[in-house]
């Protein structure tokens, strides 16, 4: 039962094979059993979950259930939630309880989803392995010696290990897609501005975007229906008419034009990953798609420009954590400067400090033009590359990650090695485009995903391609033995 998709659970609830309370209790039991080893959750909210589930059952009994009513969900601990800790994976917010909830959380609650708890993550979403969390590394359910990816590693591991039916994540440079690939699940990063950032703790404001981590593309579409849409509390949210992301799921792929970026399929691509991608392409071709090569000439500049822009924004976004109003405060500060220095030195982890330093440097007088301004120029070029490619193709297909999940501690010593984990995903954030990852096979019993990238607002088409692929394959149904 716990491995079922949202769609399957909803029909089981409709058929009264189970109740939301029973389902919630079953997930809570499994969390209690497995979370000590997997560490996917920072906070489990059993009591509230059961209360929400009871409410959901009542709503269903009244005949008012929607597609997500009574479905247990896990929220990345980056989303503010009232009454419950919101730590963002950091010691800095070890005691922070938000007086308000994020729009994403509010909307899912309104849709009837039952919150099981808050998931582990890289500190302030800075990391690609979930090892920077103050609350300990998350273990990949496929191999507990390995990382689940990051930064939404807790959410991805929770979905893969059936510790929830679906989860929220955020993606600044690949933080939904890469863990989805490592954990063998489906993850979607929507177009920038599609989902409100209100109440989502900022890492890099111009790149951050919330999205679903699910067991199928269909589930992702259902979650998108709940969370997408304009929000007056976020000035960067797009004022678009409401869209039904499930509407195109059943469309045929006949005539679909798939672009393969030559930069993603270079000789550097891992041959095993390449083979699996070729297999996935064949599936799509058998469904009527055609493929052609596309050129993303500035793709190689995406990682360096990202590691200027994202830390620059982060350096300002994280200034508010000063020990004055909330969060971690050092003991017995002797004066204001001491309060700032020690609260921040003790409250932030190494990776966060590294990025604040890099960002501060990049914005400094005399360096601004050489770094920040230049990175913004590159960002425009990257966007133009995609725009040109999408004149010829409907979606772009390529790898999500260079390889399968790596071992815990393997890439900790060199930050740059870790930064290169996101080499295929980062350009999508810089261009503000929608991108998703879905499982297409395994290498040495470890799952790996392919990435689909769409033009702005092209989520429905991406979900359609992914859904059609999943109707014809069963990689998304593979579960780890935990």
């Amino acid at each position, binding site marked *: 039962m716990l491995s079922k998709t949202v769609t399957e659970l909803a029909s089981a609830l409709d058929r009264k094979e189970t109740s939301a309370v029973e389902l919630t209790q079953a997930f809570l039991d499994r969390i209690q059993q497995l979370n000590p080893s997997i560490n996917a959750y920072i906070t489990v909210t059993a009591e509230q979950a059961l209360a929400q589930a009871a409410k959901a059952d009542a709503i269903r009994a009244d005949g008012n259930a929607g597609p997500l009513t009574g479905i247990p969900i896990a929220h990345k601990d980056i*989303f*503010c939630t009232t009454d419950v800790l*919101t730590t*963002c994976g950091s010691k800095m*917010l070890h005691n*922070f309880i*938000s*007086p*308000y909830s*994020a729009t994403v959380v509010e909307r899912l609650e309104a849709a009837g989803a039952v919150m099981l708890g808050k998931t582990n993550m890289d500190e302030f979403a800075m990391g690609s392995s979930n090892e920077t969390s103050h609350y300990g590394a998350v273990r990949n359910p496929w191999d507990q010696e390995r990382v689940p990816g990051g930064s939404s590693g807790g959410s991805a591991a929770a979905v893969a290990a059936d510790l929830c039916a679906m989860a929220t994540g955020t993606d600044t440079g690949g933080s939904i897609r890469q863990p989805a690939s490592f954990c063998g699940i489906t993850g979607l990063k929507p177009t920038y501005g599609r989902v409100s*950032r*209100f*109440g*989502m*703790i*900022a890492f*890099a*404001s*111009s790149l951050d975007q919330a999205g679903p981590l699910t067991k199928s593309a269909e589930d992702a579409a259902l979650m998108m229906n709940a969370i997408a849409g304009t929000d*007056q*509390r*976020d*000035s*960067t949210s797009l004022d678009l008419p409401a869209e039904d992301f499930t509407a195109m799921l059943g469309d045929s792929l006949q005539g679909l034009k798939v672009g393969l970026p030559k930069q993603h399929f270079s000789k550097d691509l891992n041959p095993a990953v390449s083979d699996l991608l070729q297999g996935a392409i064949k599936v799509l071709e058998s469904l009527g798609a055609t493929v052609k090569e596309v050129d993303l000439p500035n793709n190689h500049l995406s990682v360096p420009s990202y590691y200027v822009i994202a830390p*620059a*924004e982060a*350096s*300002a976004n*994280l*200034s*508010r954590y*000063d020990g*004055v*109003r*909330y969060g971690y405060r050092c003991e017995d500060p002797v004066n*204001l400067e001491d309060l*700032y220095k020690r609260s921040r030195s003790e409250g932030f982890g190494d990776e966060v400090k590294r990025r604040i330093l890099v960002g*501060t440097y990049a*914005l*400094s*007088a005399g360096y*601004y033009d050489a770094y*920040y301004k230049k990175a913004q120029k590159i960002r425009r070029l990257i966007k133009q590359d995609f725009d040109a490619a999408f004149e010829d193709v409907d979606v772009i297909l390529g790898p999500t990650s260079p390889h399968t999940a790596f071992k815990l501690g393997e890439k900790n010593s060199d930050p740059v090695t870790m930064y290169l984990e996101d080499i295929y995903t980062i350009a999508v954030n810089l261009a503000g485009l929608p991108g998703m990852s879905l499982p297409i096979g395994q290498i040495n019993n470890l799952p790996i995903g392919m990435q689909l990238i769409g033009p702005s607002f092209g989520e429905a088409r991406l979900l359609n391609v992914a859904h059609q692929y999943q109707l014809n394959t069963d990689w998304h149904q593979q579960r780890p033995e935990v």
Partner: protein
Amino acid sequence: MTWETVIGLEVHVQLATQSKLFSGSPTKFGAEPNTQANIYDLALPGTLPVMNKEVLRMAVSFGLAIDAEIGKRSVFDRKNYFYPDLPKGYQVSQLDFPTVGKGSLTIEMEDGTEKVIGVTRAHIEEDAGKSLHEDFQGMTGIDLNRAGTPLLEIVSEPDLRSAKEAVAYLKKLHSIILYLGISDGNMAQGSMRCDANVSVRKKGETEFGTRAEIKNINSFRFVEKAINHEVERQIDLIEDGGRVVQETRLYDSELNETRSMRSKEVANDYRYFPEPDLLPVVIDDDYIAAVQATMPELPNAKRARFVSEHGLSDYDAGVLTADRAMAEYFETVVTTCGDAKLAANWVSVDLLGLLNKADKGIAESPVSPEQLGTLIARIKDNTISGKIAKTVFEAMAEGEGDVDQIIENKGLKQVTDTGALESLVDEVITSNPDQVEQFRSGKEQVFGYLVGQAMKLSKGKANPGQVNKLLREKLNNG
């Protein structure tokens, strides 16, 4: 050696919006600490700014008032620094693309000369909170009520050449923002704050000297004193062989001196970059035209109209239009009494005299414009004389009631009844035989004395015109 002073002013004007620049918190002055700060003002994690559109309208209206270029695409930036009353660790401001670009305004000096002062720019930014040092032993309190209040920072060109010009510029700005209704302009409460960049150079030199920035000047009077003090300090320093250091100095109004606050040579690097939580503010010609359509008549236009429409002297028009409330008061008086010249005299002499003596503003005037208008109307319809009117005016100022009521109660109505006046004139003639004789023998000057006697006898109530006429008739016929 003759020195030239070069001054540029940076004026922060608190815009009179109901709510803050990027949050819905109210902006009232004087509320209990931290009762007007919401989740955004407190910089809680995950909060985002949403711009108050009224601020944009106000900024654009100011831009139009000083004939400035209006930024059709203005961009907010983050100005980064740590301070406890700056909760986000950055202030949202506008660096490269302000809403108001180059403009100018004309100042008038006391001797009537005019000078055009360039305005470099005016940008929108949020105010910081306040650190309260006094009430906490060994600690600092933070009040975030003011944090996020919208400010318009108006930066002048270094076109001002004396403290007096600086004051005239500031007064002109004050007048414009009050006319536009975009701020209460209350300097004592900090709604209008002034920083002055001051430098000196030898007359004839084209390069600017090194400047010092004087902060914390919170009244027109202090602006003049602070600048003069700073100019003196700089000249003394240079003449003694020293050099001026570029720095920020704080004006102490009690000691009337400026002192060094921090050196700008080791200044903060604010690491400005575009605020990613806000989209650029894009406006079109239609928007600007719509703001233009709601603009009130501004001081210069009003002054010209007062000259052409009401026939006032340029000087009177200037006095009456310096303050929008004063100009509106005056126009109500004119509408009520129908005589602009009398109204101008009464408002600029009697009313202003009264208000100055009581240290009150026009808004607190004890005499309403309708009352004053009626008073003038009573002079014109001969109910009372101009002299009696002063008595009535004083009574109104004391709150003794309306014009007609006071005239009635005090029995001040002018005597116009011919019978009563005749007996009055007769009595004057009878009791002043010598003067009557002198007049009749051709000494015309005595006539004024006799009229005065008649007026005195009537306690000022007699209609002077009629007294004149009657007296002359009787004397000539006698």
